């Protein structure tokens, strides 16, 4: 028979450790990835209970879709990744380790599916990130020192417009940097897990993350600067 899974499950399952990142700057509470009712869920799945399959698909799909869209941008690609992740997980329930969280397990399969899809597609035109990093003179002082920001109040981070601006800025980052930023700052994986997921060294993760954050700050700078002030960092051309 023709196999229904476009990506081999063992590859999707070859994932990174499940250690979350608990750094000092991650202050946003996570939306839970676990289904609300896990009573006998894995047992029910393993016994072929169709209701259990539908329950877990309904419970986990919204967050998984949002996660896949962060990596892939397109809705269609994100839906493909979610479907591949669920099918891979269901096919490999015998590999699920008791004591683990089933939602977290499937979420990690999804991240692998999204990363594989990202690698396989043609790279879009990407601006060099160097243009978005701070510049320094020969004595090591900033050429354009940071100027104050006026974040929109009273609750700026909840404002739709702010979120739209930030999302667009993140989406404009080159894939290699956007991916690290999402894995570390949004998915809150630690450096080692991120390195394992991407197949790069922990040092490369740190370097890319620092550059991604700096570039994002530069992209946000004109939106939060008081009017009529000079840019503090080079702006994208």
């Amino acid at each position, binding site marked *: *028979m023709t*196999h*229904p*899974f476009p990506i*081999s499950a063992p590859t999707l399952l070859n994932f990174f450790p499940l250690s979350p990142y608990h*750094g*000092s*700057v991650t202050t*946003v509470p*996570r939306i839970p990835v676990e289904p609300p009712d896990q009573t006998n869920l894995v047992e029910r799945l393993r016994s*072929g*209970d*169709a209701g259990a*399959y*539908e329950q877990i*698909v*309904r419970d986990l*799909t*919204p*967050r998984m*879709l*949002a996660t896949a*869209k*962060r990596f892939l941008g397109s809705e269609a690609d994100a*839906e493909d990744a*979610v*479907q591949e992740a*669920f*099918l891979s997980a*269901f*096919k490999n*329930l015998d590999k699920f380790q008791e004591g683990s969280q089933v939602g977290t397990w499937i979420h990690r399969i999804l991240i692998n599916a999204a990363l594989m899809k990202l690698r396989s597609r043609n790279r879009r035109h990407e601006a060099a990130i160097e243009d978005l990093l*701070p510049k*320094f003179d020969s004595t*090591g*002082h*900033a050429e354009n*020192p*940071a*100027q*104050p*920001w006026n974040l929109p109040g009273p609750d700026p*981070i*909840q404002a739709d417009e*702010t*979120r739209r601006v*930030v*999302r667009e800025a*993140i989406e404009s980052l080159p894939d290699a940097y956007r991916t690290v*930023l999402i894995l570390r*700052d*949004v998915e809150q994986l630690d450096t080692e897990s991120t390195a394992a997921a991407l197949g790069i060294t922990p040092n490369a993760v740190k370097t890319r*993350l*620092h550059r991604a*954050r700096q570039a*994002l*700050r530069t992209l*946000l*700078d004109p939106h*939060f600067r008081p009017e009529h002030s000079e840019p503090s960092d080079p702006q994208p051309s």
Partner: protein
Amino acid sequence: MSCSRSNKPDNDAEHTGSIAVSTCQECIDFLIDYLDGTLPPAKKAEFELHLELCPPCHRYLNQYQATIRLGQHAMEEEAAKNPPPEALINAIMAAMKAGHPGKDPGEHDAPGGCGCDCDR
């Protein structure tokens, strides 16, 4: 000139006698290690001294942290709001029933397995 901190190594040595974070460039290079709490104590002290003396670097640190929070909030809010798309749910359920593993285990229980690479 943005920074009142000298970048001369001799002056740094006079300040702390330790490894110096003497310039804005070094300060910004060390930001991620500072926030991760991985700077050695002597380096951390120099870093914080630089921040005290250099308002632009202090501002940059605050904006760097704000950038992280803004990114987290911008990306998190989508998930909770949207109901799962029915078409996707139906597609997943249909694909699952068509191939794996669901209520139709007979194929997998057949002698020699089902012929696919599902390990059954």
